């Protein structure tokens, strides 16, 4: 699955992403009622990376339903994206806008996410010249 999009990610970014996934899915930390990472969730995650083109890698987690969770944190500003099957993203954010703390959440198609995040200045989470994906 990843090989279909690998050409869009630079080697260092891709290798580090795989290392994060290996660490997350380490069998030694597995509990018997944990759901494995769903293929369809990982597919949504890959599309998220391609549509959003974040320069900073996300921190990764896994929901109890087997959905990959991508999280970016800059100071007190937090963005959390749960990659559900069928290109669905559940998003939660907390960030400062014009001196006020704003919190928002929703569910959208992965292709619409850049438009939804634009008013919140997503570069606060995604910009980092040292980690460009491609």
């Amino acid at each position: 699955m990843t090989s279909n999009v690998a050409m869009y990610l630079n080697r260092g970014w891709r290798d580090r992403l795989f290392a994060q996934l290996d660490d997350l899915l380490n069998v030694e930390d597995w509990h018997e009622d944990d759901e494995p990472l769903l293929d369809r969730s990982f597919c949504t995650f890959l599309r998220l990376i391609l549509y959003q083109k974040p320069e900073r890698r996300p921190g990764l987690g896994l929901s109890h339903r087997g959905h990959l969770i991508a999280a970016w944190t800059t100071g007190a500003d937090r963005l959390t994206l749960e990659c559900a099957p069928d290109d669905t993203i559940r998003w939660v954010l907390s960030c400062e806008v014009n001196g006020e703390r704003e919190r928002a959440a929703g569910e959208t198609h992965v292709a619409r996410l850049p438009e939804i995040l634009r008013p919140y200045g997503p570069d606060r989470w995604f910009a980092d010249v040292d980690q460009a994906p491609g």
Partner: protein
Amino acid sequence: MSTKLPVEDNVVRYVRKRQLRRDSDGNVIGVLPDAFNRREREESFLKLA
């Protein structure tokens, strides 16, 4: 104005590695919201100390 929980009301919940919030280098910096979702088989996720 927010206040801290009294000591006798503190609640501890075990958080799995997969539900820890990490930065892009894998350092643990918090807890993901999913850690506070109740699972289907759980009657309650709160265990009083």
